[in-house]
């Protein structure tokens, strides 16, 4: 039985003059109309999530969906109006300020949407900042900071001030700073939405590369479904402060739980999301195959081979034949009929 590194149960954040009383009166389970009547706005409502160690968990939603509030609750920046947040099975609300500070110093790191670099410190000073406030000696923290700066590819810019860097470079500094203390849990709050599309892609690759290297638990907030599918193990889609669905990108595309999720995923790049398993057809008897693909392989990775071949490809898992994919299946995926598979 694995324990999630971070979990929240029935977390709510309400705003309004009578928000506290609203919770005390136990009206949370009531209809949304009750909220409006009481003059209370809900930023998040009854959110329960479990984030496993080592996974990349994406919180996804449009602006106003409550995703930013949720990440602020998960990181302990804002206390929830109701519900609990458990970090390594311990309730954040029950911790003393000292304990929280210790956790943030050693176990959590965060990247901010608008970088939040300290303008009066150099790149080196910014990256070393988390270590400085821990009181580590100068040589140690600067050595570590230089390591981090190298890691994000900013060698030679240690002495620059944040304003002298481009947006992408600034966010690299933000990333280096968030990793300097070696956290287990890494929050990225819309880290790339302030960047140009090209740079954004480059930075997503950077996160994937770092994740391959460092194996952190990542909580990543975004409003961009493409971005979510590129980096996520699991995605939670939020709307109006509530959870619409939690699952892998493929599950969201294939089995949308609500119309909202369906609308959201309709234009998703299916070839990059779906795996061979999702589109396979039963193997005809006496199989004659052009080749073989793994059941977990994304369609985009083999689509071209299948289209070129006249014969279908075998879909296998652990050497066992599960079925076949052929040209027709590829075209269906790309055109958008997933009915055959679903």
């Amino acid at each position, binding site marked *: 039985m694995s324990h999630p590194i971070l979990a929240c149960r029935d977390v709510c954040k309400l705003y309004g003059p009578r928000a506290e009383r609203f919770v005390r009166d136990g009206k949370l389970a009531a209809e949304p109309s009750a909220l409006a009547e009481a003059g209370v706005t809900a930023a998040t409502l009854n959110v329960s999530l479990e984030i496993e160690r080592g996974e990349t968990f994406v919180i996804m939603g449009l602006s106003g969906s409550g995703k930013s509030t949720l990440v602020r609750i998960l990181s302990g920046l804002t206390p929830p109006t109701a519900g609990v947040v458990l970090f390594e099975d311990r309730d954040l609300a029950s911790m003393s300020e000292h304990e929280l500070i*210790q956790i*943030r110093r050693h176990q959590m790191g*965060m990247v901010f949407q608008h970088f*939040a670099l*300290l303008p009066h410190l*150099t790149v080196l000073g910014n990256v070393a900042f988390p270590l*400085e406030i821990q009181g580590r000696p100068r040589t140690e923290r600067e050595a570590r900071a230089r390591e981090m700066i190298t890691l994000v590819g900013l060698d030679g810019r240690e*002495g620059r001030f944040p304003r002298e860097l481009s947006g992408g470079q600034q966010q690299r500094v933000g990333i280096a700073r968030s990793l300097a*203390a070696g956290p287990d849990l890494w929050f990225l709050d819309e880290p790339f939405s302030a960047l140009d599309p090209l740079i954004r892609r480059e930075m997503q690759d950077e996160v994937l590369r770092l994740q391959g290297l460092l194996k952190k638990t990542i909580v990543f907030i975004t409003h961009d479904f493409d971005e979510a599918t590129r980096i996520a193990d699991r995605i939670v889609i939020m709307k109006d402060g509530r959870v619409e669905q939690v699952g892998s990108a493929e599950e969201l595309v294939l089995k949308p739980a609500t119309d909202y999720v369906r609308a959201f995923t309709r234009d998703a790049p299916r070839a990059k999301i779906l795996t061979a398993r999702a589109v396979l057809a039963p193997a005809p008897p006496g199989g004659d195959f052009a080749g073989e693909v793994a059941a977990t392989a994304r369609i985009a990775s083999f689509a071209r081979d299948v289209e070129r071949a006249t014969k279908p490809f075998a879909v296998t898992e652990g050497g066992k034949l599960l079925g076949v994919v052929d040209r027709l299946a590829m075209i269906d995926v790309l055109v958008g009929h997933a009915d055959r598979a679903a």
Partner: protein
Amino acid sequence: MSVADARPAAPAAMPKLAPGKLLWPLVALVTVALVMAPAGALPAWAVKLPAAWQLGLAPQISAFMKWLMESATFGLFSVREFTRAIAWTLDLPLSAAKAVLSTGLVIGQGSDAVKLAPPIPWFAMVALGIAAGYAVSGVRLAVLMGLGLLYLAVFGQWAGAMVTLASVLVSSLLGAFGGLLLGLACVRWRAVERAVGPLLDLAQTMPVFAYLLPMLILFGFGPVSAMVATIIYAMPPMVRVTILAIRAVPEDVRSLAVMTGCTRRQTTWKMLVPTALPALMVGVNQVIMLSLNVVIIASMIGAGGLGFDVLTALRRNDIGAGLEAGLAITVLAILLDRFAQGLAHGAERGAAGRSGRRLALWAALAGVAALWLAAALWPSLATYPEAWRLSTAPWWNELVRWINLTFYSQLEAVKVFFLLNILVPVKRFMLALPWPWVAAVVTLAGFRLGGLRLAAVTGLMTLFIALSGLWPAAMVTVYLCGVGVALAMLIGVPIGLLAAANPTARKITDVAVDTLQTLPSFVYLIPFVMLFKVGDFTALIAIVLYAVAPAIRYTAHGVSQIHPALIEAGVMNGCTRLQSLLRIRLPLATPEILLGLNQTLMLALSMLVITALVGTRDLGQEVYSALAQANVGKGLVAGLCVAFIGIIADRLLSAASGRLRQRLGLG
């Protein structure tokens, strides 16, 4: 380019000691050495300016003024006739306002005087105040106006308050309108703006007394001179606000004016001014408050009114009466401020949906007219009955006597401690500094912070002060203001930090700071003269109290404008509260705090002339005594010295703040 100028961007250029870093410690070291130097080690001319080097501007200015008033002519008429004509014109509205509010309409002089009409009866004024408060802002202001005006009547301050009010109303009307016109001219013609800019600086930093004196000579002794001085002092903010507000009118509005075929005049009065009205009203508020400040000061030299009441009471050593009049000034200030704020907010909201309130105002005006008529028939109605008057003066007297008796040794100990440990040593230090060295350091600071231009400005101004022959008085000024400002910052910055961190504290300090800034500077002196008698220490407390407001306000503002994400970044990195304060909030708020320091210093300087009343020996005293001797030249030169000290400090601090802001990337 020297190494010190190399950009910090160079990698690996970590904090090795650049020559720039050593500069200021070195300067400090030399300064201390110069002060400690035994007598005779320095050349005599460096310690005390030889009389032959002095510019001798003062007698020349005096002689020029004399010539101007006695001999100069425009051909058809003399300068004297011209200025007296202006004075006569300006006197019309002032006399009218005084007649209506205070003296009643009188024809003839002395015993031949025939009273044509009484002033507006006190209860009619109270009703009018309530109606006006309601019309401008609502019930709350109406209640405040009613209570405030009743206070003035009940405690016997009515007559003084109405004289003061009449002066304030007339001079702020003229000041606001004049400021608006001048501001519009500045927007329209660049040349006007370039010419007016430095004059505005001068008018704002020069002590009022310094130009009160030439006014007296130009316009004759009397309330008009005081009014002109008031207008000059109160107008600059209006000019600046007008320039900013008109420039901030959206381009679309201007385009609309062009497309609908407005003439220039129509564009200005039908488009620009109405659009900018909410911002302009902020300027009007400032004009009113500054006018009150100066009217109080000016009334001490014979114009009558509340300031005069305070001064005479203090001279009689009637502490209670002084306090009562001081409180009346406070009440009047608060009423005027809230009323002007109500006007400004009203302009912001627009006039929609206030017809009911307008109606109330018109009804009240009609009522006032009726009451006035009634008072003309039965004159006894016009004045507040003597029998209903209350006085707290004996009570105050008793309280102060009790405090002085009970805590005499404690009060004395505090005073002596400050004098011996802070004031006297700093004063000695400042007076021991050789003037060429001070001039050199100021020039150097100007150069480091703002290049050659700033160096030239600050250097020349310092030199002017040195050569004016008022160096010792100037150094006393710097010492008194310096200590005052340092204490104000020591008190104000922590309070500002607290206010930024805690909403409750913020509310309390907001009210306190508002009140502190509303009160005319003169009020601050009153309670401390009673406790500590006259002298530098009393002056110091008054300066600190008067100047602490911007220290609090700017610090609180500087900290709370920091982007919340930066604070959160600190939290997520595990900053403790103290670390967050020292490593994030304070460094990022520093440019703003420096601006607060600048403001604090300006207020401290403006307090100088007032503190001269309690016997300080600084430039303020020079100005004040010049006024008493009717010595125009001396007064102007001393006033210019104060203005220059202010301008030097302002330019250096602004430059420092700007540089820091740039370095922090705050734009």
